[in-house]
Structure formats: structure tokens, C-alpha cells
């Protein structure tokens, strides 16, 4: 039963997904399946096996405890995601990177 909504992508993070499959449990439309293969983290990620059935209700997103999954409906949503990344995440990671750099050089109170 194909949906009226055209969903572009259901992104599932290799970095964040721990493979609890609450998304699969939450999906009323039977969109997601467990992959056959393990990713580099050793997790068999869920993937959108039947994306044409997705109605973007986002229950899978809501019940994902790891912020690993997002239903990307269209280009606008994709653009928003990148904007948020640029505006909020990048400056923060910059702050973290600066810390790492200073620490790498060694801290002064442990010198001599």
C-alpha cells in the first residue's frame, strides 16, 4: 500500500545506531527492515526496505533513543538539517577542537 507522501530518505546513523530496533517496533507501516550485514560498529542497522510505504509519521524517529534516525521528507528538510549543523553544531565542535589542540601540546602545570 503505497503512501501519498514521497519520502526522500530515512537516514540511519552508523555513528549513533546501537541496533535496538525500537524504530521497527514503532513503525505502523512496515517500512523498516534489519540489514543483513554488520556496519563498522558491528551493528546490523535498520534500513528503509519499503520507503514507498512511509507516510512520514515519524514514530520511528521519536522512539529512537539514540538520535540516530531521521525521516528526511524532502530537499527543504535536508537543507534545514545542514543549516542547523552550520549554525549550532560547527561552532561547538570548533570549541571542542580548540581544547583538543591545547591539550595535545601538553598542559603547563605538568611541565618540568
Amino acid at each position, binding site marked *: 500500500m503505497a503512501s501519498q507522501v514521497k519520502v526522500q530518505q530515512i537516514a540511519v546513523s552508523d555513528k549513533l545506531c*546501537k541496533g535496538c530496533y525500537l524504530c521497527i517496533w514503532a513503525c505502523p507501516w512496515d517500512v523498516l527492515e534489519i540489514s543483513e550485514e554488520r556496519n563498522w560498529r558491528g551493528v546490523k542497522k535498520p534500513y528503509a526496505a519499503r520507503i514507498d510505504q512511509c507516510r512520514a509519521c515519524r514514530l520511528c524517529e521519536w522512539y529512537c*533513543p*539514540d538520535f540516530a534516525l531521521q525521516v528526511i521528507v524532502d530537499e527543504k528538510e535536508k537543507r534545514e538539517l545542514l543549516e542547523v549543523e552550520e549554525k*549550532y*553544531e560547527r561552532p*561547538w565542535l570548533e570549541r571542542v577542537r580548540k581544547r583538543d589542540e591545547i591539550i595535545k601540546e601538553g598542559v603547563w602545570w605538568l611541565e618540568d
Partner: protein
Amino acid sequence: MIPEAEFEHVLAKKYMRTEIMPHAFCPGCGLGIIERMILMAFEELGQEEWDRTVFVSGIGCSGWTPLYFRRDAAHTLHGRALAFATALKASRPDLNVVVVMGDGDSMGIGGNHLIHAARRNIGITAIIATNMLYSLTGGQMSPTTPEGARTNTTPYGNIEPNFDLMELLKAAGATYLARWTTYHFIQAKNSIKKAVKHKGFAAIEIVFQCPTYAGRYILNRPDPRDMLQWFKENSIPLGVAKNKSPEELKGKIIVGEYLHRTDRKEYTERLRELEERAKGKGR
């Protein structure tokens, strides 16, 4: 297509310390869902509210919950989150102080601070994540462990009755009370929104799934999906529960908004009035 290797949800990109994620919770742990409830509530409340919100937590798995937010946050001592938060709110009444605690943190070691925060009716939002046992230490009995349950410190079955947090806090003087489970995503999120805006002590108990310990020891459902299914099937809305007998309610989670009263003055308002009275009096 967005590459999936380093992908993070938009809420994580906006609000969270993604450099230390994935977070330390077990796969399927409900605390991540509680994090999302909080973030979605603030996404709806708007940037201005978020900018003046600070978080305080105690010790235990639940204590880690707000530490992933890019906000001022204090990871305090076991049970003492509310004492820290009380002073924070009393010193800066303009801030939204959100405290996340577990059942042991709030009702066990920190029980005294909990009832006194409620008694003062200080404007703190307490999110109490209940998983029915101590999980960080490896599955021991907590004040919410059901009677008869076997945990690592109740090998013959728990002989202690448990706390009803809602009744406890109602008697102590809290002015907003709600209980949900991680299954009740939208309702819990709405309650958090209400609680943040509420003037007075607000507590929201969220029963969440701990597949690793509560799932294995108490519910006999080690899969987080089965636990959520169990929450769905065994929670009864407050209105429906009123017409049921105690036998029918045994072992059920009664969810809903328990209390919302505005007739008790908030503590920091009282403090401000006190200051007015004291000023002008000599040394």
C-alpha cells in the same frame, strides 16, 4: 542523499554535545527517549526559553541524561540534585531549572530533598525517570521496585512496598504532577512544556524501559520493544483508573496529569516579598 556514516538527528545537531555521542546508555534504553521528549518540548517552547534553561542531575544512569545538552548543567551528587537546584533557582529566579533524577536519586537517597522542594513549592521542573531499580550499579532494589520482584539485592523477592510518587508529592505540596511512560511520547512532552511554564514545584514521573536490568529481572522482557509494548498494554489513564477496583489496577501504571494547582505561592516570590520586608530594617 545524506551520508549515514556520521549522521545525527537534527535535534542532536541543534542541542546536543555530539562530540561525546553515541551516549553511554545501553541499546534501547528509555533515557534517550526522555532526552528527546525534553528537547522536543523546548523546540516547541522556543529558543528564548531554551536560552534561560539550566539542567541539574544526580547520580545514576538518569544523571547522565541532561549532560548531553549544550547548556549549563550540573552533574551533582547522588540524591543532592534538588538541593543544588533549589539554591540555583532561589539565586536566579529568572532561570528555568530542570532537574532530571532517577527513582533512587529522588525517592531513595534524595527523598528528604524531594519532599522539602515540594513543600517549598520552589519553581523547579523535576523529571523523575523511574525504571523500578538501580541500574548503574547493576540491578538492585529501589523504592519503586514492585513487591516480589527479584533483583540483585532481593534474591528471594522484594519484601518492601514501593512509593507512589504522585501521592507522596501531592501530600508534600507540589503543584504540578504528571506520570507517563516512554510509550506516552506526546503526552510526556506536553507535560514537560507545561511544567517548565508552571510557577511552582512540578514533577513528572516518566517510567522508562531499562532492558538490561528491569527488562531481564522484573518484567522478564529483555527486549526494549517488548518493554514498550508492555508499557502500552499495562498503563491505564487516570480517568479510566478511577472506575476500576484495586485488584484490576494491581501491577498497572496509572498515567496522566495528576495535579495542576495555582493556589500556592511559589517560593522565590515569597523570597522577594521577604526581601522587601527586611529592607529598611536597621542592622
